[in-house]
């Protein structure tokens, strides 16, 4: 006969109470697993969208370009950057930016023009695949343009619509040209949706009378490197430029991923573990008072208070262990389902966090930590919760307990 066996038998003396408590704790564990995996899935998706869609893990600009997006603040020596990226197998795209006016019929809008290399964009980023109507650019798409969806809406433009573009060139001349809409992007990010007009870099150079003015290099290793590693790699060799990670470029998303997820996960973990802990404590207190006389007998025949504490705590631990198995099976099954099929939030409109438009299918992200954390928390809180009833049982005066009446 072992203490664990005695605890097990004691647990099943009041089956209904044990079943109810196990169900409550299992439910809390299951909900925590599902909730945490959904939060992590959302955060992972936000980071993935942020870095893979268009921003990249690191961006390089000329000094002060982000404060003053002047056509003339371009990167002078891009070859060195390209060589470091190539050596480390980091994806790289070059982008040129300029501002001007775009009009379609009677409608016009201020626009940020992008000059891009479509092959590089397709290879290293996803936004070129985010086409709602028409097609993205190809190397032969001369005088074609891809519009952000809100910009297209404000211009009442469709695929094939003729657009007139007016800009001030780098040499001070007026640049104007006719373009045709090749495609319209899906939701990408608010600033892109409202103002981006994307063209071939050659068209950009002609329009802005620019000689390959690269304003931005976006680097994306697709998770092979941490953003800070790429930043350090580049900073070591490239001087007099601004090298920013996506976290620095998009502090809202960074804050959300690093702080909010921790806050939300901690808050919900606390709520559910405290609720479960109180349930376990309540059960153990009822069980202790039910067995007051027995504890008195055990004390009378020589058991130390510590032995009684161990026995009562062990009952709580066994109860939580059973609940953990059930809660994990249920929670993990649901979390894995959502990891595969996701949760469709299309009906709620665009899901946008910090200006980054999320995939309307919200998927969970399951990991070992997500499963183990709630179990470890529940085990800990149950053990702590059992100490109070255990101490009641241990402090019993045998002579009083033997004559105790329920």
């Amino acid at each position, binding site marked *: 006969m072992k203490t664990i066996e005695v605890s097990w038998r004691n647990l099943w003396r009041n089956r209904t109470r044990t079943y109810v408590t196990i169900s409550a704790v299992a439910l809390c564990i299951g909900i925590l697993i599902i909730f945490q995996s959904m939060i992590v899935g959302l955060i992972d998706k936000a980071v993935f969208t942020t870095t893979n869609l268009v921003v990249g893990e690191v961006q390089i600009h000329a000094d002060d370009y982000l404060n003053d997006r002047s056509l003339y603040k371009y990167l002078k020596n891009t070859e060195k950057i390209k060589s470091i990226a190539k050596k480390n197998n980091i994806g790289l795209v070059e982008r040129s930016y300029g501002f001007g006016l775009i009009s379609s019929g009677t409608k016009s809008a201020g626009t940020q023009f992008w000059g891009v290399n479509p092959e590089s964009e397709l290879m290293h980023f996803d936004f070129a695949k985010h086409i709602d109507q028409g097609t993205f650019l190809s190397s032969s798409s001369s005088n074609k343009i891809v519009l952000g969806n809100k910009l297209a809406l404000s211009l009442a433009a469709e695929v094939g619509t003729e657009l007139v573009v007016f800009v001030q060139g780098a040499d001070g001349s007026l640049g104007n040209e006719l373009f045709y809409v090749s495609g319209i992007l899906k939701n990408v990010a608010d600033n892109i949706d409202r103002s981006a007009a994307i063209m071939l870099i050659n068209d950009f150079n002609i329009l802005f009378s620019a000689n390959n003015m690269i304003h931005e290099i976006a680097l994306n290793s697709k998770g092979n490197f941490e953003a800070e590693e790429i930043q350090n790699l580049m900073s070591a060799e490239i001087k007099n430029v601004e090298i920013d990670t996506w976290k620095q470029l998009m502090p809202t998303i960074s804050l959300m991923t690093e702080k909010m997820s921790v806050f939300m996960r901690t808050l919900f973990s606390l709520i559910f573990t405290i609720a479960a802990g109180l349930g376990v404590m309540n059960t153990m207190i009822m069980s202790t008072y039910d067995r007051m006389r*027995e504890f008195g007998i055990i004390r009378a025949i020589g058991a130390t208070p510590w032995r009684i504490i161990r026995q009562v705590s062990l009952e709580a631990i066994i109860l939580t262990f059973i609940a953990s198995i059930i809660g994990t099976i249920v929670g993990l099954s649901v979390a894995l389902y959502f990891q595969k099929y996701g949760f469709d939030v299309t009906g709620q409109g665009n899901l946008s966090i910090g200006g980054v438009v999320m995939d309307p299918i919200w998927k969970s992200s399951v990991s070992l930590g997500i499963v183990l954390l709630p179990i470890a928390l529940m085990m800990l809180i149950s053990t702590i919760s059992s100490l109070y009833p255990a101490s009641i049982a241990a402090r019993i005066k045998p002579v009083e307990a033997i004559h105790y009446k329920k």
Partner: protein
Amino acid sequence: MNTNNEIVSLTNIIKNYDNGKVITKALQGIDLKIYQGDFSVMMGPSGCGKSTLLNIIGALDRATSGSVIFNGKDFNSLTNKELSIIRRNQIGFVFQNYNLLPVLTAYENAEYVLMLQNIPLSQRKEKVMNLFKEMELEGLENRLPRELSGGQQQRVAIARAVVTNPLLVLADEITANVDSKTAQSLLMLMEKLNKNNNITFLFSTHDPIVKKFARKVILLKDGRIDKEELSSENI
């Protein structure tokens, strides 16, 4: 079988219960000695202090004043933990309501106190099985208390009390819940254990059957020893 080895010596034991409003004087100056091999019974009307005295001798409760010397140790100088150890190793208890642990089988109930003493499994098994044989409990080892009759439960409770071979067994109204035939057989069993194993018994009872078996009768009245008499019939 009095060997004149003193196990318990009580000197001027006073026990008062104070509920904040009324002080009840349960024991008012008890002097008593119990010797190894005694088979004694405490009798007296309800409220005379029998159970209180039994609890104090058994280290389940402390006296308000006076001294309890048990096997040379003064209870007043011992901590609660040290009293627990004395109860575990040197005192056995048999209660009126059997008070077996309901989730343990008959065997496990008897074994439990040996487990508390950290006796190895093989020795525990040998001790319990030998005792069960001696006490005619063979075949009932795997039964839970609820599957046993009152007499059988009390036998198991006696087995639990004597399995550690204690210096003293305290038995509180043990025949109260059994019929006279069963009471007789229980007392015969305890008398046998007293004679064969030299275990000292002290009973608290109203039951005249117990008196018949006792070699010493202690009569209590109003918290005092009214009379101590030896039974010539049983000496």
